[in-house]
């Protein structure tokens, strides 16, 4: 276990049980990611990319193997401690945005702050500045259905940012967007990386992956090869 790494994953297994059939989504995967790295994950559909992201994001637990985040063995944590990590250490950006439909952009971005006891006043300030970072200062009072797909994804990125997490995880963040909007979103990630954030991003598009410093190719539940982008 290297104490330099932000993320250390060893022999990770994930098995889904669907009635009698077992689906082996991860088969002994190893991975290390350092602080302030920008990493892209690529691989064919069903290769286990999302499964890996969910485990890294503490949304799911591995069947076997080890995962250290910030030198902390995640498997030893209880439910509340995991919730704390999801809140403080991780900002997750989903392919389908997952915004609360009835809440304004500002309120959506405030949400992570609600769960760590930030006062209402501070919540507003932080959420507003996160929205500013993603260029949505003028859309704070809009509800998701009043925003374009790209704008919704920016709200989601602002929500991922608002707690200043150690890692930003993005599972196909441009998957539901046209390529022009996708490029805009990628610029935001580039900026965030420039400001010192660690970013892990899943994508099917090589053009997108080339924004990262390393590309991790996954196949059948393990790392096939790691490519360093020059």
């Amino acid at each position, binding site marked *: 276990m290297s104490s330099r790494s932000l993320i250390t994953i060893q022999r990770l297994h994930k098995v889904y049980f669907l009635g009698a059939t077992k689906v082996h989504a991860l088969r002994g995967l190893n991975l290390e990611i350092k602080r302030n790295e920008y990493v892209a994950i690529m691989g064919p559909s069903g290769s286990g990319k999302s499964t890996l992201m*969910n485990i890294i*994001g503490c*949304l*799911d637990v591995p069947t076997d193997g080890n995962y250290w985040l910030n030198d902390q063995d995640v498997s030893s944590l209880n*439910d*509340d401690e995991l*919730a*704390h990590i*999801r*809140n*403080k250490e991780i900002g*997750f950006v*989903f392919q389908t945005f*997952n915004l*609360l439909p*009835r*809440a304004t952009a500002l309120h959506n971005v405030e*949400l*992570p702050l*609600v*769960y*760590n006891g930030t006062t*209402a006043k501070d919540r507003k300030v932080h959420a507003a500045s996160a929205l500013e970072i993603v260029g949505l200062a003028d859309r704070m009072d809009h509800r998701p259905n009043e925003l374009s797909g790209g704008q919704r994804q920016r709200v989601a990125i602002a*929500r991922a940012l608002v*707690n200043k997490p150690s890692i930003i995880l993005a599972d196909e963040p441009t998957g539901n967007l046209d390529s022009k909007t996708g490029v805009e979103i990628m610029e935001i990630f580039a900026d965030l990386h420039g400001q010192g954030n660690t970013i892990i991003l899943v994508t099917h598009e090589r053009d997108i992956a080339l924004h990262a410093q390393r590309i991790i190719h996954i196949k059948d539940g393990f790392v096939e090869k790691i490519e360093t982008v020059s």
Partner: protein
Amino acid sequence: MEVLRTALTQLRAHILRSMLTMLGIVIGISTVILVVGMIENYRSNIENDLSKLGANTFQVERYDGQAFRDPDQRDFRKIINREVADVIRDRCPSVRFVGAELWRRGQSISYKGEKTNLSMLIGGATPEFAINNGYSLETGRFITERDVISHTRVTVIGMDAVDKLFPRENPLGRVVRINGQKFTVIGVFEKQGAATIGQGRDNRVIIPITSWEDMWGKKQSANLTIMAMSPELFDQAQDEVVGVLRQERKVAPGEENDFHIFSNASLAETLGGFATNMQLYGSIFGFIALLVAGFGVANVMLVSVTERTKEIGLRKAIGARRKDILRQFLIEAIILCLVGGLIGLAAGLGLVGAFGDWPPSVPFWAIVMSMGSTILLGVIAGYYPAYKAANLVPIDALRYE
């Protein structure tokens, strides 16, 4: 506060569903408030009335109220002679005061051409009347032993007569006509107010019992009012009086009393028991309505949890703990119930006010209890759905379609 905001948003977003769910609570709570409020009104009025009727007192009449309406029973009883009061006075050590009264209904009295309507009740009474019946005087004096002995033509009148005949004059010393005869007003009763049972008591016009007999003869049965020496001797006094009356009226052993004896205390007990029962049944009905409503609330919360599985997943994904989700759904259930409860409370108070006095007076305990039980209902009905929501695995909840 954030949770509260979410809860209210949800309530508004599903306004029809929420209203239908709350209906049971509204009905339950408004019923309880209505019943409790009405009964409380009724009870306090009765207690008020009865406390006017001299404490510690019981009465003897020839017939009870029931028999009075049943002619089969009526004729064979002897009248109660007013002189029997003197015998009781002599022979019953536990009795403090004995009064005798003779009544004449549907009378009118007049003063200088002004006439009351025919609602006056003219009572021939002994001096014990006032204390035994709990009347106080506004001004003047009451009838004395001397008035009775010398058949004095004096009268003490109630507020109905005062209002009609002496709107701005002092009635004391004025001469009114009762049954065509002149009587001097020597006293005025304090205002008694409206009554819940029977008619009001402000229509009484009292004259010495002997003067009454001078006008209407000695054939009418008297009512006796008897006050015991002390509350402890109340039952004993009743026994003594029954004994004397049976002996005087020659009732053979084993035969039933040929007179009716009753006390305000027993009346109050009966009425109070009735009120308590009504309150109990009302509360049981309300409780059942709440119970049924509870299933509705639980159901709607389960539906809500299922509908919002994705939202729950998201909240967990960004750091909500189990207890945050649990609290959120519990509070939503409580708000749902409490809003229903408040509407029910308003409706109940409105109904109590509509049927009774405005502003409506409902005992504080009933309000606290009913609001408390809606909150409790929210907790109970909301707990399982909230627990279910809290224990969702984040990724499964997020993936839910």
